[in-house]
C-alpha cells in the first residue's frame, strides 16, 4: 500500500521537528543558566569546580542541539535560514561568538599553561551563560513581533535597518522574552545543580536563588505572554495566501488548536510544580518536572508561531515578504527524504538517555571528580 503524503503535511511535520528541537534546546540551556551564576552561586573554589563539572559534562548536548537546530532549519526552511541569518547578521554573530568561547572554556579553564588564565575562561562561561539564552530568546521573540526585511523576486533578503538584527533589542516585548528565557535557564540550572551535586550548603544557596530567579522568569514571561495574546498577529489568509494583521491572532491560535493549548498549559504547570516542590519540600528532582515543562511550553509556543495559517517569521516592514511554513520550506522531495532521516531521532534520543543515565549514576563530589580524573 502506498501512502500519499501531501506537501502540506510534510511542511507541518518539519515545523513539529523544529519545534521539538527548540523545546529541547531551551531545556538544555540549563547549562548556560548555570554558567551565568558561576561567580555568584558558589562560596568557595570547590563548589565552583563542582558546578563547572556538573554543567561541563552536559555542555555538548546543548551545543549539538543548537547546531542541529540550525541544520534542520536550513534543510527544511532554507528561506528562513537565508533571510534571518543573512539579515539579522549581528544578533546571530553575537550568539555564535558566545558559543565559540564556551566550547573551549570548559576544557581549557583549569589546564596549566592556558595563556589566558582561569578567570578569563570563567568569564567566557559567564558571558555565554548570560548572553546565549538572552539573545536566543530575543531573536525568537521576533517570530511573533516581526523583523524589518524585504525579499525581492529572486527571494534575496534586504534588511532595511542598518542595525542588522540589533534593532530587535529596542522592543520591550522582545526583551521580555529574552529575559524570560534567561531566568528560565537559570532556574533550570539551579535545579540541575541541586540534582547532580552533593553539597548541602550549595543546595541551600540554590534554593534561595531559585526563588528570585523563578519569580523573575514568571514576571517577564507573563508580560510577554499577555501582550502577545492581546496583540495583533501575522495571519495568512486562507483564501488569498496573503499575510494580514489579525487582532488576537495568537490567542485565536491557542483556542483554535486545543491540543497546543493543553500542551502549553501542561508545560507551564510542570514548570511551576518543579519549582514549587523544590522550594517547599526540598525535593531534588525538580529539574525533571521543570525541564519537561520547559520543553512542552517552548514546543507549544513554536507551534503557535507556525501553525494555523500564521507567519512564523514575519516582516513588520513589508507583510508580503513574511515567511510561512508554506513559502519558506524545502521542496516536497527534500522534505520527504528528510522525513525518513528524522525517523532515526527516537533511536538517537534513546542512546543519549542511556549514556546520560550512565554518567549521572554517581553524584558529583570532590572524591568523585578525583576518581574520574578528567576534571574541568
Amino acid at each position, binding site marked *: 500500500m502506498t501512502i500519499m503524503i501531501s506537501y502540506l503535511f510534510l511542511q507541518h511535520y518539519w515545523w513539529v521537528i523544529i519545534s521539538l528541537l527548540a523545546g529541547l534546546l531551551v531545556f538544555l540551556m540549563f547549562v548556560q543558566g548555570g554558567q551565568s551564576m558561576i561567580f555568584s552561586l558558589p562560596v568557595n573554589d570547590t563548589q565552583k569546580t563542582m558546578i563547572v563539572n556538573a554543567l561541563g559534562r552536559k555542555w555538548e548536548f546543548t551545543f549539538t542541539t543548537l*547546531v542541529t537546530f540550525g541544520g534542520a532549519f*536550513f534543510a527544511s526552511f532554507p528561506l528562513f535560514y537565508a533571510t534571518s541569518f*543573512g539579515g539579522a547578521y549581528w544578533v546571530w*554573530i553575537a550568539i*555564535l561568538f558566545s558559543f565559540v*568561547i564556551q566550547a573551549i572554556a570548559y576544557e581549557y579553564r583549569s*589546564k596549566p*599553561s592556558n595563556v589566558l588564565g582561569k578567570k578569563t575562561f570563567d568569564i567566557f562561561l559567564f558571558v555565554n551563560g548570560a548572553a546565549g539564552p538572552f539573545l536566543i530568546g530575543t531573536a525568537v521573540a521576533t517570530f511573533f513581533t516581526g523583523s524589518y526585511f524585504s525579499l525581492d523576486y529572486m527571494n534575496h533578503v534586504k534588511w532595511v535597518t542598518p542595525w542588522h538584527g540589533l534593532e530587535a533589542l529596542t522592543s520591550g516585548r522582545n526583551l521580555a522574552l529574552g529575559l524570560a528565557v534567561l531566568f528560565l535557564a537559570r532556574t533550570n540550572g539551579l535545579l540541575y545543580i541541586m540534582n547532580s551535586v552533593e553539597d548541602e550548603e550549595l543546595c541551600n544557596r540554590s534554593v534561595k536563588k531559585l526563588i528570585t530567579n523563578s519569580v523573575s522568569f514568571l514576571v517577564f514571561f507573563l508580560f510577554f505572554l499577555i501582550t502577545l495574546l492581546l496583540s495583533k498577529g501575522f495571519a495568512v489568509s486562507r483564501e488569498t495566501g496573503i499575510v494580514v494583521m489579525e487582532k488576537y491572532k495568537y490567542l485565536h491560535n491557542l483556542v483554535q488548536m486545543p491540543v497546543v493549548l493543553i500542551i502549553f498549559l501542561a508545560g507551564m504547570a510542570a514548570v511551576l510544580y518543579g519549582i514549587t516542590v523544590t522550594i517547599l519540600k526540598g525535593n531534588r528532582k525538580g529539574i525533571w518536572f521543570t525541564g519537561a515543562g520547559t520543553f512542552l511550553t517552548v514546543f507549544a509556543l513554536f507551534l503557535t508561531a507556525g501553525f494555523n495559517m500564521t507567519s512564523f517569521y514575519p516582516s513588520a516592514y513589508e507583510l508580503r515578504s513574511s515567511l510561512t511554513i508554506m513559502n519558506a520550506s524545502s521542496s516536497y522531495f527534500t522534505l520527504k527524504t528528510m522525513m525518513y532521516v528524522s525517523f*532515526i531521532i527516537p533511536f538517537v534520543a534513546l542512546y543519549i538517555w542511556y549514556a546520560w543515565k550512565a554518567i549521572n549514576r554517581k553524584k558529583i563530589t570532590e572524591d568523585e571528580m578525583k*576518581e574520574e580524573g578528567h576534571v574541568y
Partner: protein
Amino acid sequence: MIELADLSLVDWSRAQFALTAIYHWIFVPLTLGLSFILAIIETIYVRTGNEEWKRLAKFWMTLFGINFAIGVATGIILEFEFGTNWSNYSWFVGDIFGAPLAIEGILAFFLESTFVAVMFFGWNKVNKKFHLASTWLVAIGASLSALWILVANAWMQNPVGMTFNLDTARNEMTDFRAVLFNPVAVDKFTHTVFSGFLLASVFVLGVSAWYLLKKREEWMAKKSILIAAIFGLVSSLLVAFTGDNSARTIAKVQPVKFAAFEAHYYGKQNAGLTAIGILKKSDRKIGNLEVNDFIFRINIPGFLSVMTGGDRNAYVPGINELLNGPSEAAKTMTVTEKIEKGSDARNALTNYKRAKMINDTEQLENMKAYFKTNEYADKYFRYLGYGFLQVPEDAVPNVPVAFYSFHLMVMLGFFFIAVCLVALILVLRDKVLKNKWFLWIMLLSVPLVYIASESGWVLAEMGRQPWIIQDLMPVSVGVSDLSTGSVITTFILFAILFTALLIAEVSIMIRQIKTGPEH
C-alpha cells in the same frame, strides 16, 4: 535579476569564510585520526588487560580532548556562516545543501557528543566494553560528520541530482542518491578522511619521537610509533590512491581547475605531469590572464596525457583551449560558448520573472514548457553562472595558488609515505632509538603534515574560484547583502579570537606533552 555584489564585500566575505575554514581544518583532521588511534589502543588494553595500555590511551585522550574542543568551537561558525555571509547562496541551494548538514547533526554530532562524554567521564561508571564501544563510536561519529559535510562540499564542486525551479528561483533536489554518490563526494570523503588519519599518525609519531629524544617514556613512545606507523602507512597509501582518483575526476568535471593546478596553459600531446616546479610570470597573455612559465621543472613525461586520456599521445587541453577553443581541442564546450549559453539562461530567467510580474499567463506557460525540456537544462541552465562572467578569463582561478598548493600537498604526501614506512621498519627492528636523525625527521614532520593538509583545502576551495557552485553561481552572486564594514569588523573579531584560542591550545598541548602520561 540577480545582482553582482560589490567586490570588496565579496573579498571580505571570502576572507572571513577562509579564515574560519582554515582554523577549523587545523583541528578536525587530528580529531578524525586520533579518535581511531585511541580506539585501537583501548582495544589492545581491553584485550590484554595491561594497565600500561590504559595509561597510554588516557594520555592520547587528554590531547584529543584539548584539540576536540577547539574543533567544535570553530565548526559552529562555519555552519552558520553559510547563512550569515552567503545568504543568497543558501537560498539557491538550501534545498540540497541543507539536507546533508541536518543529517550531519542528527546522525553524527549527537553520536560524537554523547559518547565523548562517556569516553572522558565513564572510566569508573561503565564497564570496560561499554567504554570501548563509546570510544569507537566517537571515532565513527567523527568520520560520519566528515562524510556529510563533504557530500555538501562535493555538490558545490559538481552539482548533481537537482533541477532548477523557476518560481522559487532555486535548485531543488530530485535524486538524493546522486547527491550522496556524486563521484566527487566519494573521492572527497575518502581522500579527506584518510588524510586526517595520516595527519594524526604523523602527529603521534612526532610527539613519540620527542619523548625518545628526551629519553623519556620509552615503552609508551615505541608502542605509539608502532601503531601510528602502521595506521599512517596504510592511510598514506590510501591518500595517494584516492588523490589520484580525485585528480582524474576533477579533470572531467572541473577541467579549468585541473589545468590551473597543473599550470597547463596551452594544450598539447604527450603532456608531462609536473613533479616539482617553480613558476615565473612571462610576457605572454591569454586575454587578460597573465601566463606563467616554469623557471624550474621536473616532470614525468607523458603522464598527464596518460592520466586524462589513457595514452601518451592523448591531447590534453590547456587553459587557453578551454577558454577560447576550438571546441575539438577543448574536448568540451569552451568557456566562451558557456558564457553565451549562460547569458541566454540568465535572460530567460529575467524574462520569466517579468512575465510573472505582469501576469502574462500565455507567455509564462510557453516559457515553462520550454524550461522543462532537457535541452534547456543541459544546454543552457547548467551554465547559468557563466552569464555573470564578463570575459572567459574570469573563469580561471589564481593559477600560482592552485599550482603550489597542489604540488606542495602531493610532494609532502609522498614524503609521509616514506616517513611511515621507515618508522615501521625501525620500530619493528627495535632500532628507532639508535637513529636520532630519524627521530628529528618524525618531529619536524608534524608542522609539515599540517601544511600539506591545509594546502589540500586551499586547492579545493581557491581552485574552484570564481564559483561558489561550479558553473551555476559565482561567489559575487552568492554573498549576503551586508555592508563591507560589518564583514571587516567580524573578520577582525574572529581573527583575534581564533588566534588567541589557537595560542592557548598550542600552549596547553605542549604543556601536557611535556608533563607526559600519569604515573
